[in-house]
C-alpha cells in the first residue's frame, strides 16, 4: 500500500513532464499532420539552457533563493527555447509544405540528429549534474513496515507549475483569437486562409507554444533528476510521443491524459516488474496502441479520403 501511494506520486510527477512534451507533438500533428521528431531534442536543449542560466543566476548573480532563481530560469528558458522552435520550423519545415509526404519527417530526423550533436559539440558529451536545488521532503505518513511515503518539494513544484501552465495554455487555446485561428487551421487550412487567417504565422506560433511547454518540461526534468546529457532527448521524446498517441493524437486533453498514464505505467512497471525493461514497456505500448487503437483514447478516428 505504501509503495503503491509512493509510486502513484512519482508516476504523476513523471507523467506531468511527459504530458508537457506530448502537447508539443499533438499540436504540431494536429495542425500540419507531421511527427515533429525533433521535439524531444528541443526538450533536451531547453534543459541545457535552464542548467546554464541556473548556474549564472546562482553563482554569478548570487541569487540565493532557489525558487526565485527557478522562476527566472523558467521564463528565460521559455523565451530562448521558443526562438529555437520558431527557427527550426522556419528553416526545416516551412519550405517543405507541399513536398512529398515523408519529406517533413526525414527533415525532422535531420534536425533531431543536428540538435543532439550540436549540444554534444558545444557542451561536451559528459552528463551534467546540477547543484542540488530543492532537497526537502514532506513525510505524508509512515507505513506499518516503517516505509515512509514522502512527497518532495520538487514534486510539488513540478505538479503545481504543470497545472498552472496547462491552465494558461488551455485558456489561450480555447478563449483567445490565436487559439481560434489555430483550431481553424487544424480543421481546414485552406479555408482558414481564405477567411483571412495568417496560416504561416499560426503554424509558427504552434511551434513556439510547443517549444515553450517543452522548455517547462526541460526545466522540470532537470529539477527532478538533477542531471542532463546531450542524448537525453531521444527516450523522453519517444515516450511523450507515445503519450500523445495513446491520448489520441491531435487531442490536447488526450496528450496530458496520455502523459499521466505513461508516467504511471513506467513507475509501476519499474516498481513491480523489472526496471530493465521499463523502456521496452513504453515502446511496446507505442506499437500496440498504433496498431490496434490508432485513434487513441480521446482522438477522432481518421477517415482516409481519395
Amino acid at each position: 500500500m505504501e509503495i503503491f501511494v509512493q509510486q502513484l506520486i512519482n508516476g504523476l510527477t513523471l507523467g506531468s513532464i511527459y504530458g508537457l512534451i506530448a502537447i508539443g507533438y499533438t499540436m504540431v500533428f494536429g495542425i500540419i499532420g507531421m511527427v515533429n521528431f525533433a521535439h524531444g531534442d528541443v526538450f533536451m536543449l531547453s534543459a541545457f539552457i535552464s542548467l546554464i542560466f541556473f548556474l549564472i543566476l546562482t553563482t554569478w548573480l548570487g541569487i540565493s533563493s532557489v525558487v526565485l532563481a527557478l522562476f527566472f530560469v523558467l521564463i528565460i528558458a521559455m523565451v530562448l527555447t521558443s526562438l529555437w522552435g520558431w527557427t527550426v520550423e522556419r528553416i526545416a519545415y516551412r519550405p517543405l509544405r507541399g513536398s512529398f509526404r515523408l519529406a517533413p519527417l526525414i527533415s525532422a530526423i535531420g534536425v533531431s540528429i543536428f540538435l543532439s550533436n550540436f549540444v554534444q559539440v558545444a557542451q561536451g558529451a559528459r552528463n551534467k549534474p546540477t547543484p542540488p536545488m530543492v532537497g526537502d521532503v514532506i513525510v505524508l505518513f509512515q507505513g506499518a513496515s516503517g516505509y515512509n511515503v514522502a512527497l518532495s518539494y520538487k514534486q510539488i513544484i513540478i505538479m503545481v507549475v504543470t497545472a498552472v501552465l496547462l491552465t494558461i495554455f488551455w485558456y489561450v487555446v480555447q478563449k483567445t483569437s490565436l487559439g481560434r485561428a489555430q483550431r481553424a487551421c487544424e480543421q481546414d487550412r485552406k479555408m482558414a486562409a481564405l477567411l483571412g487567417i495568417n496560416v504561416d504565422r499560426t503554424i509558427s506560433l504552434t511551434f513556439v507554444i510547443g517549444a515553450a511547454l517543452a522548455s517547462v518540461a526541460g526545466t522540470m526534468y532537470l529539477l527532478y533528476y538533477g542531471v542532463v546529457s546531450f542524448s537525453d532527448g531521444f527516450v523522453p521524446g519517444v515516450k511523450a510521443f507515445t503519450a500523445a498517441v495513446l491520448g489520441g493524437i491531435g487531442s490536447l486533453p488526450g496528450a496530458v491524459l496520455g502523459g499521466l498514464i505513461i508516467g504511471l505505467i513506467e513507475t509501476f512497471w519499474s516498481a513491480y516488474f523489472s526496471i530493465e525493461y521499463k523502456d521496452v514497456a513504453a515502446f511496446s505500448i507505442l506499437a500496440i496502441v498504433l496498431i490496434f487503437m490508432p485513434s487513441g483514447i480521446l482522438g477522432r478516428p481518421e477517415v482516409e479520403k481519395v
Partner: protein
Amino acid sequence: MNAPSITTTAQTNTVSRNFDLAAAFKDALKAALITLGLSIPILSYKTNQSGADLFLTSRWGLVAIVCAIVFGLRLVLHAFTASKAYAKATPSPRQATELVDAGPSAFQKASRFGVPFFLGVALTFPVLIYLIQGGLNESRYWVDLGILILTYVMLGWGLNIVVGLAGLLDLGYVAFYAVGAYSYALLSTTFGLSFWICLPLAGILAAFWGMILGFPVLRLRGDYLAIVTLAFGEIIRLVLINWVDLTNGGAGISSIPRATFFGIPFTAGEDGFAATFGLEFNGMHRMIFLYYLILALALLTNFVTMRLRKLPVGRAWEALREDEIACRSLGINTTNTKLTAFAIGAMFGGFAGSFFAVRQGFVSPESFNFLESAIILAIVVMGGMGSQIGVAIAAIVLVGGPEVLRNLTFLQSVFGTGFDPNEYRLLLFGAGMVAMMVWRPRGLISEREPSVILKERKAISGSLVKEGHG
C-alpha cells in the same frame, strides 16, 4: 525564405541587375541577430566540470564568429537568388528549345561511363592501394576503410528496397543488422557452425524477423509506420542488452570465429591460407578476403534489386510508393507486396550483419542504436531514394568523407590541434538531411530510369514523379 527584393521583383516582373542591397543587408542582420539569440547560452557559455561542481566559461568570441558567418552566408544567398531571378526573367534565346529537348542530360552521359568506372575501381581497389602505398601492411588502413564503406553501401542498398522502392520509411533497419550479427555470433560460438552456413541462416532469420515485425505495422500510414519500426528497433536493442543469459548483455559476445577461405583459416600454421598457397604469411590476406567478400555481397544485393525491379513484385513496390490507393484499386495485394519488401530488405540487412560480426569478431548492442539506422537512412535519402548508384556515392561521401578530412593536416592548423572532423560528422549529417529535403528532396541523383518502357528508353527527372499517399 524569400528575400524582400525578390518578392517585389516577382510582382513587377522587371528584374534589375543590381539587387536591393539595403534590404538584403537588413535581412542578413536579422539572421545574425537570431543566431545570436540561439547561441545564448548554449554556445556562449560552456559548462565545465571540476569534481562535483560545474562552472562556466564564456566563449563570446566563438559566438561572434558564428554570427558573422551566418551574416555573410545570408548576404551571399541573397546575391545568388537575385542573380537567379534575373536570369529567369531574361530568357536566353535557346530556352524554348531546351525545355522540350529530351536528349540525354549530362548526368546520363556521365553515368554510361560512371558505373563501369566505379565497378572497376571497386574491383581493383586493394591492388591500387597496394601499388600506391607500396606494401601490404601500409595499405591496411585503406582496405579497412574500403570494407567499412562497402558495408554501408550494402546496408544502403538493402534499405533502399524498403524506403526507395516500396516507399516504406523504416527507422528500425538496424534491428535486422543486429539480428544478422547476433545470429552469426550465437550460432558460431554455441554450435560451432562455419560462416558459410551461418550467412544464409542469418539472412533467413533476419527476413523472418522482418516479416514478424512487418506484419502488424502494414496497416499504418507512412509516418506512423516509421515510428513503430523505430520502436521495434529500440525494443530489439533493449532486449539484447537485458537478456543477459542469451546475449551476454551489454558486454557483448567476443571471440567470434574469424572468416576462413572456404574452410582454410587465415593463420600462420601449416594448414593456413598462406602455407596452402605458398605465400608468406600476412594478416592482410584476411582483410583483402573480407574486402572481396563484402564487395560480392554488396554486388549481390545490387544485382538482386535490379532484377527484382523488373519482376512484377518490383513493379508493384514502385507502384505502391507512388500511390497506395491506386494500387489497391488495380488489385495489387498491398500486404504481400509490403511484406516482401520488408523481408527482402531485412534479409540483406542480416547478411550485412553477419559480415559485421565476422569482421569485428565482437558484437555488442551498442553497435545497433538508433543513430546507426539514421546514418543508413541518411545515405539512402541523400543518394536519392531509389537510385542505386546514388546510394553508393552517398555512402562513399558520408562514411569516407570524414575519414579523409581527418587525414588532412592543414585543417588542424586552421582549427587548432584538437580538431577531429568525426566530432562534427553527425552534426553535418543532420544539417545535410535537412538541406537535402529543402533543396533536392529527390536526392543527389534524381534521375529515374523507368522500369517499364514503351518503345523508347527515356529517363525522367525525379521531380516529375509525384508521390501519393503511402
